[in-house]
């Protein structure tokens, strides 16, 4: 699993990247009450705002960590957005992206580096 400075995690699964937010990010956001996910089939660019997370505090944007195509989104988050607070790095993944350029992965952190990053 790799981590971004935007507090996202990426996990490779059958040639696509599964993306979610970190437990640390979920804790900072507070109770999540709504998640707006992109449409399956959308072509996205790295750093494009593609997910909106509404918590009891505010709305936050999630940026795409890679260029590519959204191939699946997590339907569970529409029914039960609070899952993000319970299992941010497991069942509460946001979307799966078929990357067209994997080079940014070299810049992303491993778990130890991410832990140092968040202090």
């Amino acid at each position: 699993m790799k981590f971004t400075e935007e507090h996202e995690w990426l996990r490779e699964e059958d040639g696509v990247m599964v993306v979610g937010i970190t437990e640390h990010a979920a804790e900072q956001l507070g109770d999540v009450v709504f998640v707006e996910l992109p449409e399956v089939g959308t072509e996205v660019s790295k750093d494009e705002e593609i997910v909106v997370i509404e918590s009891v505090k505010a709305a936050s944007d999630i940026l795409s960590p890679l260029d590519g195509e959204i191939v699946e989104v997590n339907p569970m988050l529409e029914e039960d957005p609070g899952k993000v607070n319970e299992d941010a790095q497991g069942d509460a993944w946001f979307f799966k992206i078929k990357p067209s350029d994997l080079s940014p992965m070299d810049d992303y952190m491993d778990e130890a580096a991410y832990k140092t990053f968040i202090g």
Partner: protein
Amino acid sequence: MGELKRTGLYDLHIELGAKMVPFAGYEMPVQYPMGVMKEHLHTRAYAGLFDVSHMGQVILRGDDPAGALERLVPVALKALADGRQRYAMFTNDDGGILDDLMVANRGDHLFLVVNAACKDADIAHMRAGLPDCDVEVIEDRALLALQGPAAEAALAQIAPVADMTFMDVAVLSSDFGDLWVSRSGYTGEDGFEISVENSQAAALAKALLAIDAVAPIGLGARDSLRLEAGLCLYGNDIDTTTSPVEAALEWAVQKVRRTGGDRAGGFPGADRILAEFDQGSSRRRVGLLPETRAPMRAGTELFATEDATDPIGTVTSGAYGPSIEAPMSMGYVTTEHAATGTIIFGDVRGKRLRAKVADMPFRPSTYKR
């Protein structure tokens, strides 16, 4: 911006693990480790303790402080019985609202609680407008709120409050000195606001928190609780540009102060406000229930149709309601779109999402009448 002020409970907030934020010039707890959602639900199920010491406490003395204060508010105070409290608002010459407040009759004087962000202006306004009164600002007392179905049983362990009903006020002696108690609050729940000497405030708060049912609650949950209860937040839902009629606060203006009443008018902005009572206003504060799960937050523009270009209004408060398990908003719309059940559209990140005009409170209040 000067240095942020702290309330007498600051050390206790830190000890309890609160996340502190700047609010109206004070460092205040926005949430405790329990988190906003659980704090909200705890208050509705048991009891929540809030530090509201940033609010202004004022005593008004004079030959006829109620009659004098009626010159600044469109509210009937002369008939307010000893031991009773009433909601009021200071209006300006344009009929806008300078602040909303609570006024209690405590026999030979009035006791006022005003908003933190407005208190300096309110005090100056009263000193200028009430030369026949002595305006005493209470600096040595904290203010706590205890709200929720378990509030009465909890506070009854400290002072005899069980016989009080909604909007009663009393001075009660306790192990923590004299408590100035009102049976009121800002959550839609039964509960109390308790003014206590600063030197006793932390001890009183700890005694209440030692009761199983009582948990500390921050400003985050305070906001979602008051919004579910349909209560206005000054600066968001009411301000100098909104009149009491536009704000749907007609209930707070008693008949005796309206056209035809014995003491009609005689407050700032009476011409506009009384005319709006007779003719209606062009816009009105309403509740809104979005039909999707996306909250419509303050600033969201409202439209009559999915593709209309000119907005009919704006959301002034919006959040997720943990007890109603749905997003909720309040805002202003043109009067023709203000009827309950009207479908309108909020522009959320470029998408027009449906919302229904709804009666407030969103959740029925449980005041002890």
